[in-house]
């Protein structure tokens, strides 16, 4: 049973790793780099925080 579990672990690892690589390729070829890297630190804070004491 343990050996079967070991082989299953290899199998799951390979399948999920391939899925992530496929999804990565799909996302990077579908969306522009400007959109993907558009996150900015403190964006929500700039809107909501007025820092009035």
């Amino acid at each position, binding site marked *: 049973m*343990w*050996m079967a*579990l*070991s*082989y299953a*672990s*290899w199998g*799951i*690892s390979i399948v*999920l*790793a391939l*899925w*992530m*690589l496929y*999804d*990565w390729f799909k*996302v990077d*070829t*579908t*969306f*522009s*780099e*400007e*959109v*993907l*890297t*558009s*996150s*900015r*630190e*403190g*964006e*929500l*804070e*700039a809107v909501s*925080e*007025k*820092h*009035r*004491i």
Partner: protein
Amino acid sequence: MTVTLEPAVHGDRVSLLRVLGPAHVWALGVGIVLVGEFTGWNFAADKGGALAALIVCWVVGLLYTSVAMIDSEVTSTVAAAGGQYAQAKHIVGPLMAFNVALFLVFAYTMLEVSDAILLGDTIVAKAGVEGLTHNSFIAATIVVLAWLNYRGVLMTLNVNFVITAIAYISIVILFFSVSPWTQGAVLKLNELVTPGNALPYGWIGVIAAFQFGIWYYLGIEGTTQAAEEVRSPARSLPYGTMAGMITLLIAAAMTWYVCASMMPWEYLGITYYPLWDAGKLTGSPLLENLLFIATLLAALASANGCINDAARAWFSLGRDRYLPTWFSAVHPKYRTPYRSILFLLPIALAFAFIADLNQAITFSILSGVLQYTFMSINIVMFRKKWPLGSIRRGYTHPFHPLPAIVLFCLCVVTFFAIFLGFGSQLIAMVAFYFLISLWFHFYRYRFVRRGDQFTMPWPKPQGY
């Protein structure tokens, strides 16, 4: 073909998703740490005896209470992914921030590696099958958890909450199963810890035990990495972090009491599975299996939280151009820093296959203590530059500057303890951070847009 994103958040921008609450913050912090109760803390007994392991449990508990208090105040004000990195950037400066981010990435990646090795070794020890190695289990741990992190932070931390809670409850069940209110039936503390063997190496043994006492609580500060993904950072982060610290103090005390009352310090100090062994020693197959499963779940929860935190620190470095901006990509559907997760995945796998557990743990602890040292200095600068009343804080920690002084002093003691055990690694690591700082200062910083990196809408600091 290039298309514009439809479900955009700010026009055509994609950012991390604010979906987490205090329970997720608790799950992140306690999830990373709890594995330390299942293995790690007990090596303190090897350094200084069972009583030394208890003393460091309390004293290091004080160190981490200071960490939690300080962190809660600063993070409830600087609520950004990257946690202590974002704090350092705004309060100390870019070079410190770069180093702090590396401390974070190293501490969490090496802890993830240690967790995966522990999980693999635990399964191999349980199976007892000739020819079975830990490699497949290590690979599955790292890849499956990376996939979970890739798919979204909410599911990742929901899973962490459930498995951390099960692991924690197993400690409570073990504690009450051994009749903790009576001595002699199952527990034999008065026989195993006597005045003659309580501190076999004297007080220098207590100092040396600090190195592994860190394991009781290592990683609780990781809660701050969720700052950009919690719905209400000013409330959720202090609440989740403080609740996590209280939970861990209780778990650490229960763990020590049960283990020190069932195993002689000579064995307790060298076993890799103190709680699982305690479960075996009760003679109950149910408890033995429960503690085996809990050990695996604790390792999984820790590795899961570490992947989350290391990826956010790396992502933040990319976003500020401290590293190539390529790393700052956010997945448009899952809203996770997917490139950072994928980049760190093979690094973790490589270390897990080539490094041994002791090396990985030592690098993690060293990076963690460097980070705590920074935090003690950081809070003093924060209070000086922006005194109480000058900016809004979600939480204000009491007795300042006492926690900062306590934290700094205990860090110095811990560095000395690490030097006693792993002096060459300590020197090598400090040399590494020094060289990488030179690279950042003389080469990389020219790519940073200096005005863009300071994002908090604060008034000018006092004295500037």
